[in-house]
């Protein structure tokens, strides 16, 4: 059997809290192949960012581990580039200089100055930011900042591209443009991408597989859905596609029916418990009265 590109085995993580260790994730198992586009979706607070941070090496799993290309992952590195939710650009550097910082760190000694310049400009043009590359973050819009963040991550030539709700803070139109850009980049470069998202449509449109997480605490992988839609995918054409809608239905049903049922069950259980206690109290009092 081929060694999977990225493998998470039995990953669990506890966070110390005043009430004792808080188990955020429980027994996460996932195998990802080279070139796959994976979306992770789930309710707020279920630990999606935590999974990403463990793969990135920013957190250490308490149990289990992450193996990339046969090597264990336990610290951050440029081969697992991260695109953060808040672009995280240096406010005192221009867009070009922000990408340059990453390129200089990763390719020091391996590329000449001219090659570096070309590489930086190539990545900025991949995200359509050539015209504004010498502007500072406070001079460009949120969408443009996020694009520069993506360019910076791509410029590190990562084995895996990790994206933490990259389009969450953007309006619908900008999001649509950036999703299309991301699909083009993914087709052109063939890199592995793990993306966290809240948006069901985004997940179905962009991914090869959707990983759906259960509610926290002690969240785990509830279900993995394979999206077998032909690439390149056109959002307008897919709007009427039966399979696209079926996939959407599956994800929505998982999130809003199964997960909510879980919530309701716990609520109902608590209600039943309370009613039982009240009944017992009444019987006891009747018993005392009779005696």
């Amino acid at each position, binding site marked *: 059997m081929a060694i999977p590109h990225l493998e998470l085995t039995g990953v669990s993580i506890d966070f110390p809290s005043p009430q004792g260790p808080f188990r955020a994730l429980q027994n996460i198992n996932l195998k990802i192949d080279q070139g796959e586009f994976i979306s992770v979706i789930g309710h707020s607070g279920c630990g999606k960012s935590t999974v990403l941070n463990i793969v990135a090496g920013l957190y250490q799993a308490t149990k289990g581990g992450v193996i990339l290309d046969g090597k264990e992952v336990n610290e951050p590195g440029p081969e697992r580039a991260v695109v*953060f939710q808040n672009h995280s650009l*240096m406010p005192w550097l221009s867009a070009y200089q922000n990408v340059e910082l990453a390129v200089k760190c990763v390719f020091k000694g391996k590329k000449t100055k001219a090659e570096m310049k070309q590489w930086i400009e190539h990545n900025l043009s991949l995200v359509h930011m050539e015209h504004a590359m010498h502007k500072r973050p406070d001079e460009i819009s949120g969408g443009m900042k996020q694009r520069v963040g993506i360019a910076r991550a791509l410029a590190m030539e990562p084995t895996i591209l990790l994206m933490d709700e990259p389009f969450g803070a953007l309006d619908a139109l900008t999001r649509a443009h950036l999703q299309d850009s991301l699909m083009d980049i993914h087709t052109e470069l063939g890199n592995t991408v793990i993306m966290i998202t809240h948006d069901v449509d985004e997940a179905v449109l962009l991914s090869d597989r959707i990983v759906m997480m259960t509610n926290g605490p002690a969240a785990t992988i509830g279900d993995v859905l394979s999206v077998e839609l032909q690439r390149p995918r056109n959002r307008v054409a897919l709007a009427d596609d039966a399979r696209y809608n079926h996939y959407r239905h599956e994800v929505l049903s998982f999130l809003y029916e199964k997960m909510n049922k879980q919530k309701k069950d716990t609520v109902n259980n608590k209600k039943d418990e309370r009613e039982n206690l009240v009944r017992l109290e009444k019987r006891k009092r009747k018993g005392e009265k009779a005696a």
Partner: protein
Amino acid sequence: MEINGITMKSANSIFDRIASSIKSVREMDPKQLASVIIKGTLVPLTGIVAFLVIWQLGASRIDTSLGKFPGPAEVWTQTSNLVDEHNNVRAKEAAFYERQRKRNEEKLAGDPNAEVTWRDYTGKETFFDQIWTSLYTVMTGFLLASLIAIPTGIMIGLSSTLYMAVNPLIQIFKPVSPLAWLPLVTMVVSALYVSDEPIFAKSFLNSMFTVLLCCMWPTLINTAVGVVGVSKDLNNVSKVLRLNWWTHVRKIVLPSAIPMMFTGLRLSLAIAWMVLIAAEMLAQNPGLGKFVWDEFQNGSSNSLGRIMAAVLVIGFIGFLLDRSMLMLQRFVSWDKSMVLR
């Protein structure tokens, strides 16, 4: 121009700002323009005039042992006296040097190998000389304090252990008044600075060190806060890029901390100027503080007026120092969310 990755905006930006404000003025309609000018100049002017009137009325009612409390007219007279005195002394000095030069020339003309002596003019310092002395004393003290406070602030910001070690000392020494430091500084300087040909006057060193001890705390504390407050996201970027410690400090921590650092510097300069005047009075450094003290000891009928004139000059110089610091801060600070005024 790049320093530590911060691209300094060129002077063009100042011209751009002036140009854009001129442009916006030209685009205003005349009524709006008139109201802006009137508001901008008339209102502050009214405030100043009202203050002068109240001052004059109040002053004429206060009788002190040295004569009436000086009103604005009296202060104006004294100021022009000070200017005249300064010009007189300068003229005398020029004349002295001229006579000396002529004398020595004649000597050399008569006998080319004769010994000529060049003496320095030993006249009394004028008011403006004293202003200059105060300024270079405060700048020396402030710059030395910054040279100590900024690296220390960075060190304690980066290491929480160092911070816990140094913090109690900061909290204890921060509130100490300059007048309490001065005797200690004087004793130490006179014990350690023993030389036959001193470059620096002892009074200068005493004032300068007192200023240093009192004004370094805001810079130290604010630099530490700036270093500690580097955004978590930027720290994560640094971890992903696997930056070594030195690069991390140089490229991420220091530029992040610069806005807070400059806030600290501005506070420190304001404190330094205030401390200097007090220190000069007691250390007898020939600056504005000494001027006020001498006038007070002198007790002539002009004294209060001259002291009042000195007070206004001290305030005005403090204002100019603060404004220069503000301009420097605007030039260097990248943080657009900080309102700088």
